[in-house]
């Protein structure tokens, strides 16, 4: 029955073909074909997930002898459910949303092609299928983002996306070629078995194969998931239709997290690759969040919010929490998809009435009216740091002596805790006098983080990586020396404390009427508001290359 996975991409492909054939006669009714096909695809994916959950063993189903296979395994069926589910919602939404746009049938054809390509990507059982899907996604997205063929702006930014994706295609091709040269097969399970048997295999220039492939796959993931320096396309692609933005932010951009998970058997034999991934993810999440907070344009702000989230997802992979990254991408897909698809309705409602409740939260967040008197911030700071330290110590002594081996878990837990505590710490300045209520909320939030993390991580880990050696191997590959780990934690804590001090200092200045920002602060703000000039530098380089090409043509007389 798991052979049904071959039908998964076939359904949307058949729908695309049927729409093309019947568009002239059915007119706008073609959308129903697409909708039914996407519903069937979702139901099929859900059935396959059910099979996976019931313990059906992973299997490779081939169409061709050399390549052309799809893999039935927990990762592929879980991702297939996510993709087909989001695709179905986007289909339903688009039926009316796109009704007055030209190229209605073309839109649904492209949407179905995109769904098929995404499903092939997540279920690819060999490198050729993976490369095919990986490339086609970039091409189809280019035309989806440029659906309005009259808009030069839409195509300009669609091109940015296309080009970034092409940059991400190249390392994956290189990784595929290196793996084929080393083992003589395109099949992913066979390649992983070979790597497991001979992890010390070397490749070009005598480099270790696993490390090289790990870094190349990571590069491909960085371009797809808008990591720092390959991120400029994401905030600028809001010219496309809203359903495409939803699909892109909820589904396509998550491909980075997926591909790293798919190559997990390679990463368990790497030394530094996961540390690089962690570092890039960390930088991206910080820069994405900073840029999100400083944009005037709400759409760009949303784009940078996705960038920050993607950074966090990649960072999770870097600390060895692979399955948690999958959970993160699913959660992000759901809330970002809701945000995009709900935006139109919210704007429409807001035109009638703002419906904003005039309560404490509103006056605090929107009107920025904190309580006039100070609260015992030292107590809050102490709780922020003391609670996790006490819990870690208790876990170490009472639950698992080797808990510190899962450094990634601790880093994420610490991040989660500090973020949650900071939010409550700042909201504590609301016009509320109940100190104990706030403290209880802080403790409660931490409990939720711990339980949520432990439970979800455990469930996803067991499902995606049933082999305990694999689970331990991932954490081991992501691990660093205890001294480094400690140094990093101290650094992070210092940065957080510095942030508090800065906030305190700025707050104090404002209190005394010194609202004019300093020179350095203004310079920093200019840098951030211009998005670190990265897009400008790329445009400058592009123009330079085009000028060079033009001059070469003139010198060489156009032959």
């Amino acid at each position: 029955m798991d052979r049904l996975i071959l039908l998964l991409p076939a359904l949307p492909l058949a729908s695309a073909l049927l729409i093309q054939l019947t568009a002239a006669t059915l007119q706008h009714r073609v959308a129903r074909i697409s909708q039914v096909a996407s519903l069937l695809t979702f139901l099929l994916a859900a059935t396959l997930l059910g099979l996976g959950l019931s313990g059906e063993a992973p299997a490779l189903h081939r169409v061709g002898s050399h390549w052309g296979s799809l893999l039935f395994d927990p990762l592929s069926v879980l991702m297939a459910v996510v993709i087909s589910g989001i695709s179905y919602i986007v289909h339903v939404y688009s039926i009316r949303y796109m009704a007055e746009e030209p190229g209605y049938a073309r839109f649904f054809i492209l949407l179905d092609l995109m769904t098929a390509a995404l499903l092939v990507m997540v279920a690819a059982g060999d490198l050729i299928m993976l490369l095919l899907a990986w490339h086609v996604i970039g091409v189809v997205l280019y035309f989806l983002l440029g659906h309005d063929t009259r808009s030069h702006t839409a195509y300009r930014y669609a091109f940015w996306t296309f080009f970034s994706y092409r940059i991400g295609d190249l390392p994956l091709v290189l990784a595929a070629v290196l793996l084929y040269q080393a083992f003589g097969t395109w099949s992913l399970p066979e390649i992983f078995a070979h790597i497991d048997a001979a992890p010390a295999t070397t490749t070009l220039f005598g480099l270790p194969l696993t490390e090289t492939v790990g870094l190349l796959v990571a590069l491909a993931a960085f371009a797809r998931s808008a990591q720092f320096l390959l991120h400029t396309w994401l905030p600028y692609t809001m010219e496309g239709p809203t359903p495409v933005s939803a699909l892109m932010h909820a589904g396509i951009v998550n491909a980075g997290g997926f591909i790293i998970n798919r190559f997990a058997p390679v990463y368990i034999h790497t030394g530094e690759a996961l540390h690089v991934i962690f570092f890039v993810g960390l930088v991206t999440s910080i820069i994405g969040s900073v840029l999100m907070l400083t944009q005037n344009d709400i759409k760009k702000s949303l784009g940078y919010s996705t960038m920050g989230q993607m950074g966090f997802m990649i960072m999770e992979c870097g600390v060895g929490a692979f399955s948690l990254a999958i959970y993160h991408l699913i959660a992000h897909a759901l809330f970002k998809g809701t945000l995009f698809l709900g935006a139109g309705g919210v704007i429409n409602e807001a035109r009638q009435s703002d419906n904003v409740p005039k309560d404490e939260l509103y006056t605090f967040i929107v009107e920025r009216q904190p309580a006039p008197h100070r609260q015992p911030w030292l107590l809050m700071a102490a709780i922020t740091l003391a609670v996790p330290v006490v819990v870690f110590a208790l876990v170490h002594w009472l639950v698992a002596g080797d808990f510190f081996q899962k450094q990634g878990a601790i880093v994420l837990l610490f991040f989660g805790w500090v973020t949650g505590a900071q939010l409550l710490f700042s909201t504590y300045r609301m016009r509320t006098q109940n100190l104990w209520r706030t403290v209880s909320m802080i403790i409660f939030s931490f409990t939720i983080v711990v339980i949520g993390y432990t439970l979800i991580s455990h469930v996803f880990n067991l499902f995606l990586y049933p082999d305990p050696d694999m689970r331990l191997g991932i954490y081991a590959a992501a691990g660093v020396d205890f001294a480094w780990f400690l140094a990093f934690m101290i650094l992070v804590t210092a940065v957080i404390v510095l942030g508090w001090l800065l906030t305190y200092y700025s707050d104090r200045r404002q209190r005394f009427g010194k609202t004019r920002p300093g020179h350095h602060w203004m310079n920093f703000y200019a840098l951030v508001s211009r998005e670190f000039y990265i897009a400008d530098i790329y445009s400058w380089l592009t123009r330079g290359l085009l000028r060079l090409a033009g001059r070469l043509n003139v010198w060489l007389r156009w032959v």
Partner: protein
Amino acid sequence: MAIWSYLLVGLFLPLFPLSMVFNLLFARVSQPLARAALLLVWPLAGLALLYSLGDDVPEPVLIWALATSALYAIRMLAIRDMGTWTGFLATSVWALLWIPAREGFELKGIAIDSLAFSTPLALLVLIMVLLNRRLGGTYAGVREGMATSLPRLSVALIICLLAAVATPPFPAFFTLLSVLMLASPINMIGMLVVWLLWSWAAARLIQGFVVGTPAQGCNVQDIGLPSSWGLAMVFMALVLTGVLLTGDLL
């Protein structure tokens, strides 16, 4: 092999500046069928000549070939005329055929690779005829908005361009992949960069023709349904050829 032999082969399997001879000839030939035939036959002649000489290809020639490919790929970025663009792309892709030739691949296999690269280019020449009849030229950015005024032809143009720049699942993609597997590490990276430049150039060309608002009073007639179906069949055949023949699925 003597230096003059390389110079002779370099006319057909382009090595700069000998590559200029082909581009000059391609620009002079105006008859579409002759142009298409030239695209199909030119590299085959080079391969036949190279194999008849029978000697090994030295490494410097590969570097020269890759540099030629990169030079024309960069120059394509600034080209607006589709005819010149096609000639440059042909030069850029054919130069890569030196790599399998050096590895001693049998002539039949490389000839198929050559056709995988050249067939979409020959098709592009035929599409140029259709464009020329309707727009009076094949210059990107002059008569924009083809997606609105000539939707069927614009789809055909886009698919043909994608096939020409080795987008999967067209045959050139599989050929490029097989050539990549034979290349040395540096050449491999060079080839990937060249591939990236092809895609960039194709996207610029697509945007020059397809995007925008057609000029007022631009009442050109799109290609008919039979022609569209004909082109669709040809593209389908190309995909099948790619997957089964150069892709070696079965």
